[in-house]
């Protein structure tokens, strides 16, 4: 038993961190956007990021969920587009029943967007009657959605799309609808996308919570009022300590979820749902507290604090809501129709 990263995993995490620090500073969001340009997709594809956990036999790098977790966690410290997750999961879905599509996704040439259903849909039907919110849909060729029973990719071109303004204004949003046959479908028995997504979303939320913890602590050390750094005030210090505890709990549980997947433990769903519940709470709560720690500066568009809060709110809507996660950890059933998206 060892929940620390192996030397190799640490190297991977460091390498990912270095690239993100150089290429994806948060300040890029001012007047810009988190939507990635084609050359950026190709750059991260060349680093192997989009096929990290995919078998080498199907065109991936051949690592596992642990390495995908490290990537996803780091990605939200820099608020990378959530389409990163769509690409990672999309490649897994394609690998099952559309192997010819894997190469394009892993090469960063075909982009995939996440979707949030606006009305229930059963993903096992031949023809899906969907109404969706597409997250960061610019240039996306496929749209990915999943539930406990299956994951599907739809062709974006077959959907009617209208761009709309979104709360997370670092990326675009559109309303999409149509009645379409999936381009590819993987059922639960073919690939457990649902649990994998829970772990990776938990990773993203943990990374986000970590990022805002550091941002709050850094500011608390330099901002002075009443003749001292505000971090000396216990109201601020304890808020930061609580942020750190939330991150620690989420991070440890995240590791537990990853190892229970790789060791084939039967309680993967419980472990993954617990990780996601804690990570989501950590992301939302830490992002909220961080704004408060920053005072009026935290309320401005210029300060990066708001991006984290908005992204936390966005991630919350992807896949299972807390209501379902709570049932998963207790081992209670969730109605399938309810669990869509």
């Amino acid at each position, binding site marked *: *038993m*060892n*929940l*620390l*990263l*192996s030397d190799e*995993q640490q190297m991977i995490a460091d390498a990912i961190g270095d690239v993100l620090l150089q290429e994806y500073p948060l300040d890029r969001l001012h007047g810009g956007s988190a939507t990635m340009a084609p050359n950026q997709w190709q750059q991260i594809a060349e680093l192997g990021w989009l096929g990290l956990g995919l078998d080498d036999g199907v065109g991936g790098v051949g690592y596992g969920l*642990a390495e995908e977790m490290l990537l996803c966690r780091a990605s939200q410290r820099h608020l990378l587009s959530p389409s990163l997750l769509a690409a990672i999961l999309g490649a897994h879905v394609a690998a099952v029943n559309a192997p010819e599509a894997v190469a394009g996704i892993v090469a960063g040439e075909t982009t995939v967007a996440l979707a949030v259903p606006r009305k229930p849909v059963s993903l096992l039907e031949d023809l899906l009657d969907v109404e969706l919110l597409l997250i960061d849909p610019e240039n996306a060729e496929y749209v990915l959605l999943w539930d406990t029973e299956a994951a599907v990719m739809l062709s974006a071109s077959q959907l009617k799309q209208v761009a709309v303004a979104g709360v997370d204004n670092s990326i675009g949003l559109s309303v999409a609808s149509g009645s379409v046959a999936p381009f590819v479908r993987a059922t639960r028995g073919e690939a457990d996308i649902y649990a994998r997504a829970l772990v990776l979303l938990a990773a993203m939320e943990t990374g986000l919570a970590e990022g805002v913890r550091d941002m709050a*602590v850094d500011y*608390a*050390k330099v901002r002075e009022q009443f003749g*001292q*750094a505000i*971090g*000396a005030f*216990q109201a*601020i*210090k*304890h808020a*930061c*300590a*609580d942020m*750190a*505890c939330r991150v*620690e*709990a*989420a*991070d*440890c*549980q995240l*590791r*537990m979820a*990853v*190892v*229970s997947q*790789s*060791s084939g*433990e039967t309680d993967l769903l*419980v*472990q993954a*749902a*617990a*990780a996601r*519940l*804690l990570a989501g*709470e950590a992301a939302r709560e830490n992002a909220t507290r961080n704004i408060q720690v920053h005072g009026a500066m935290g309320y401005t568009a210029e300060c990066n604090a708001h991006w984290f809060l908005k992204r936390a709110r966005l991630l919350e809507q992807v896949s299972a809501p*807390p*209501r379902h*996660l*709570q*049932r*998963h*950890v*207790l081992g*209670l059933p969730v109605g399938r129709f309810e669990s869509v998206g």
Partner: protein
Amino acid sequence: MDISFSAEEQAFREEARDWLRSNVPMQPRPHHGEAMVEFDRAWQRRQFDAGWAGVAWPKEFGGRGLSLLQQLIWLEEYASAGAPAVGCYYVALNHGGPTLIALGTDEQKAFYLPRILSGETIWCQGFSEPGAGSDLASLRMRAEIDGDHLVVNGQKIWTTYAQHARYQELLVRTDSNGPKKHHGITWVICDMESPGIDIRPIKCMDGTEHFCEVFYDNVRIPLKNVVGDINDGWRVTMTTLGFERGTGLLFDQIELNNYVEHLLELCRNKALPGSVGRAIDDGELIARLGNLKAEVTALRAMSYKTISTAQRGAPGPEATMVALYTVETMQKAFRLGMELQGGDALLLPGHPGSMQFNYLNSFIHTIGGGTSEIRRNIIGERALGLPR
């Protein structure tokens, strides 16, 4: 990252499980008085006779000398088998004994350690004073050197099980003129049967006499009972506190997990207060219980990670985060347990371990051994580097 245990560790788990299965006492632990002491003594003796006393202590001092991972396994099996909490022997086994092992003289080790393991002597901890709680280093109880003795006068308070203990790890002030309050403190072993000691039990909110006031009137303690040097007691205290390797909370965490499972069972069978439907069909309640279960699940992961870190070297300040998270989660769980019972929460069953006792006693953890506020200070200052 890896969750598996080696074949050797698995075999050890089997061995521990087998022994526990046939030796864990069937009857519940009495929660106070001589009955409690007798119960704890018998259980300690039984573990000692079978070679399971002092699992974390080195073999040369009579312990079992388990590796950190074996300790983890032992504690998991121990708690799963429903074995009782360490009880009256907590200070002796987890605090006083380890301090002697680290800093005691050969003579001190030879005399005190075997008596701890065999269950012959209970220890208590005389640190807190009426004026020195969270700010422990401000303690004032005086000890003057007189020949080859220390002469102690003053008062300690909140001394758990002082009325049952034979020895006490006692902090006294031997120098009030040091540059800082941390200087001038001495760590000494006090025989609780010495003349001049007056022990007055304090009644706690659950009705038990968990801790005591202890008064010292010209109590003479041989200088050879000093551990470390005169005026060096703060360092001695810190050494012991630094022993935490991540296993300290495992027992409570596993018990807490069982408790939450028990709450879920209750929800399946009971109506919610003020309603006729089953509690388990109540969305809000399930949400709270689910969040709680997630937190309790994470506690195990947090301890595992601390232990993983400790295997490489000293565990970091995250140990304080685990402690804070554990006690806060406990309190939440016990509060939910009370709410779930509806009107029956008013009853105080005579047996320990009831939900009502758990609830009342949840404050032991958020106050004793460092308050949650002090823990947040430590996390803020030592883990995050915020200014004092």
